[in-house]
């Protein structure tokens, strides 16, 4: 019987990755292009291609997830065995009301890209922008990688997954980040919070995914790229 991994976070370092040109172009809101070559603009192709190659050198993908046991669905919060103050708000109640478990996921690409973006912002703003877009997509990518790893565990245990819901969205307070970081021990993958509850490195994501009993709640269309 596949056991549900409870009680401690599960860490992933050295997450393998691929930087898809299509996704970077999408991140830059350039529509209908699947590759840099389709731009037919050598200067742009070179500039974005350079940012992608730099991304490969600088990204250090890490992530962690931890599964919590839901004990009660309240009117304005969801209680778990591990915390009664984490999942606050109507959005959390709606997301998790048919769930037995909820998994917190935190992922990052590390600090190197944003350090370089900060350095380039003054003298090379376009280069900074392209690199920042690569970093923004790849932070999402790491979240999606973790999401898919977790989804397999959810399916193997006989559940369905809910959509992924980001910390601080809707009425889930951003201040919940403090508990998210503590429960996942995210400091072990190099993530801290600043006084405004923003994760440092900035190119990081945090979210929750519920383990929903099959046939209950809305039919979840797993859209790991949606955060609300």
């Amino acid at each position: 019987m596949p056991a549900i991994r409870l009680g401690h976070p599960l860490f992933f370092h050295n997450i393998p990755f691929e930087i898809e040109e299509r996704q970077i172009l999408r991140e830059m809101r350039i529509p209908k292009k699947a590759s840099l070559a389709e731009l037919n603009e050598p200067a742009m192709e070179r500039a974005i291609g350079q940012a992608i190659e730099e991304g490969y050198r600088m990204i250090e993908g890490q992530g962690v997830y931890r599964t919590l046991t839901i004990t009660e669905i309240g009117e304005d919060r969801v209680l778990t065995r591990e915390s009664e103050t984490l999942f606050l708000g109507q959005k959390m109640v709606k997301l998790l009301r048919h769930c037995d478990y909820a998994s917190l996921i935190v992922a990052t690409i590390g600090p190197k890209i944003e350090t370089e973006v900060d350095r380039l912002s003054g003298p090379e703003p376009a280069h900074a922008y392209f690199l920042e877009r690569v970093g923004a997509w790849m932070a999402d990518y790491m979240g999606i990688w973790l999401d898919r790893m977790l989804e397999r565990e959810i399916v193997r245990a006989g559940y369905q997954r809910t959509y992924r819901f980001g910390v601080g969205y809707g009425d889930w307070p951003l201040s919940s980040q403090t508990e998210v970081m503590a429960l996942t021990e995210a400091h072990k993958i190099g993530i801290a919070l600043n006084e405004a509850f923003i994760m440092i490195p900035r190119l990081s994501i945090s979210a929750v995914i519920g383990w929903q009993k099959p046939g209950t709640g809305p039919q979840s269309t797993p859209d790991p790229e949606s955060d609300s």
Partner: protein
Amino acid sequence: MTPLLERLKQDILILDGSMGALLQGRGLPPGYAPDLWNLERPQDIQAVHAEYRAAGSDILLTNTFGASRRRLAEYQAEGRIREINVAGVDLARRAAAGKAYVAGDIGPFGSTIAPFGDTTFEEAVAIFREQAAILASAGVDLIAIETMFDIQEMRAALIGVREGAPRVPIMAFMTYNADGITDSGSDPETVAAVLEGFSVEIMGLNCSVGPEAMVPVLERLGRATHTYLGIEPNAGLPIHRDGKTVYPSGAEEMAAFAPAFVGAGANIIGGCCGTTPEYIRLISKRLKGTKPRRRTPSPHTRIASRTGVVPIGAGVPFVLIGEKINPTGKKLFSEAIAEGRTDLIVAEARKEAAAGAHALDVNVGVPLVDEARMMEKAVIAIGNVVSSPLVIDSSFASALESGLRIYPGRALVNSVNAEEERLEEVLPLIRRYGAAVIALLSGDDIPEKAADRMKNAEKILRAAERFGLRPEDIVFDTLALTVSAVQEAARQTLETIRLLKSEWNARTIVGLSNVSFGLPMRKTVHDTFLAMAIGAGLDGAICDPYDPLLHQTVAAASLFAGRDPECRAFIDKAAGWTPLVPQAEKGAEGTTGTAGASASKTPDHPLTTREKIERAIIEGEREAIVPLVTQALAEGSAPFEIFVEQMTPAIRKLGDLFGARQKFIPHLIAGADTMKKGVEVLQPLLEAKGPTQPKGTIVFATVKGDIHDIGKNICILMLRNFGYRVIDLGRNVAIETILETAEKEKAQIVALSALMTTTMIQMKVAVDAIRERNLPYKVMVGGAVVTPKFTTEIGADGYGKDVGEVVPLTERILAALAETGRVPEGV
């Protein structure tokens, strides 16, 4: 009883089914470790085993799946690890009553392993070794490693089990998802290659999905290996219902798949989650008298990454091993390695893989560098970004071991030779880590004659056998000697290849670059040698993958070496090649690109410098703008004219194209950056003529609590390009600082950026402060979370949706201010 491996030659054996489900029926509480019942409820455990034996199981798996030290520690039972495992074996043995084999069951150790996880490889090996030793001492007939999701954990388990239970056969099962891939990305072919490297006696798959999804995976395994195969499907995909996990496939449905399993090559069949003795009874009945299918061993050496496999040998594509990850003679590369950096290594790996290298040689040897540590870093970094198998190359056994340990695949090690010391040092590592090895046919000297090289080959083979390796674990490097120095010896290399192939069907490679050393036209020399060597039977080369002539030579020679059936690969590749000599093909024109491509046209008229400046800004050609502006100055254009009449219209035109959705934000940014670089050339010249009056002054900041600034920085770039003076206060800026600066700099506009719903409220605070103090500044706001409605609600003077709007918005605000002294709503 007949030894298990002997039985498998003749018969299909039946495993048992799920233990957990039956124990839950006997009262095992949810979430409680079944292994603990070996001591607490032994009669129940024995009874379940007996049920399976009565149903027809030939092999009983001990109730020890979660009985490793770390798993038992979750229940504070690690101190009883020996008792629990020994009891598990004892109970199964009693139930078997001499009529079934007992397999010591080992499951995952409960966490993730390096390079993914925090547990080191050796820690994991120790955990598996301990449990395997206990099971072996208790007298199991084989060890079953089950339900592994990660190939690296499986590697640790195999090493641990071999060391803890050296004479016990191993049955190794991975768990695949419905798409036929494991959680960590390995397909069946890759798993087969890695497990064969460890000489597991039985491999297979269990858990996760039902029988129908498993058949294709088993078929792929059956084609990839001749090792005995086993399979244990779940009774379908589980569904959580009414507080329980239920499995939808019934016993009849499951048993109906049994013939398909045998057809795919299965030698051992059982069931996993959701199955009961009834399932086993029907499977056993269905397969009564059925004989196993025989499969033919592959003659290839197969190396693998976590996600891909490359075969080396006759009849498969010639293998190109990229030689460029090597610091020898490369100053920058050596410096990067000395600093512990992997960026240049990663860049080279990606480049080699993109150039068509099938595998990558990794050498990080720099004097005084901790090569073992650097090899580990390099192997991890490369594995994150390319899927090519690696050749781990070092003179130091410690560096080889460091790379082999962390590498989640089957590596090829470069290298051993016939010297006893090197063989003693390296071959045990090959055995331990399931690798393959390049064997140089040199010893104390480099033999000239083929016959002498063959003697070294024999010596190496005998040593390999002593260390438990097989001929398929060795790839011979036949020594491509420098033809200009030892011409006959170079010819003997070809003879050696022929002998190794014809007499042993051995795998061969060479290090290609040596052969042409000291001669002109080196590429012609070594590529010709390569063609001749492929004709003699060579299987691979360590070479320069960036040489297009080499790729063409290999593809053409492969046509004559049985490596390209129906010439398909050659035809596909040839479409993109540059012919080296005129091919006289109909329709072929020009010397580049695909056949039939027309030559580039010359423009009807050359572009003027002004037109080129416009193009550079619109196309974002940052490298081109400085020489063009310099050219314009040299042609007599005044600096102010260049800025106002050439560059500014260009950036405006770019803005119009953006508005028409023919260009997008990245184009705006690249164009603005290009203009900035051009302006930097003009700035000192403009300033020499006296201070210029800016069109307006703007104080710009990201609000307090917010640390995002990339959008703000691009907006500032745009404004400065258009002649505005912008004071950039950075991010996370307090209101007071913004207002003090605005007063000091006599700004007309305060511009605020926020990216978060929790920080945008600071914009209202700023507007309120300005109004309450009757300050003259206009406020414009922007950022991903800001909306026109919010802008109106807080009383700001203008809203910019994105970087494309910041200049027009500023112009409107200042124009309105100039006209009326105030800014109307909706600006």
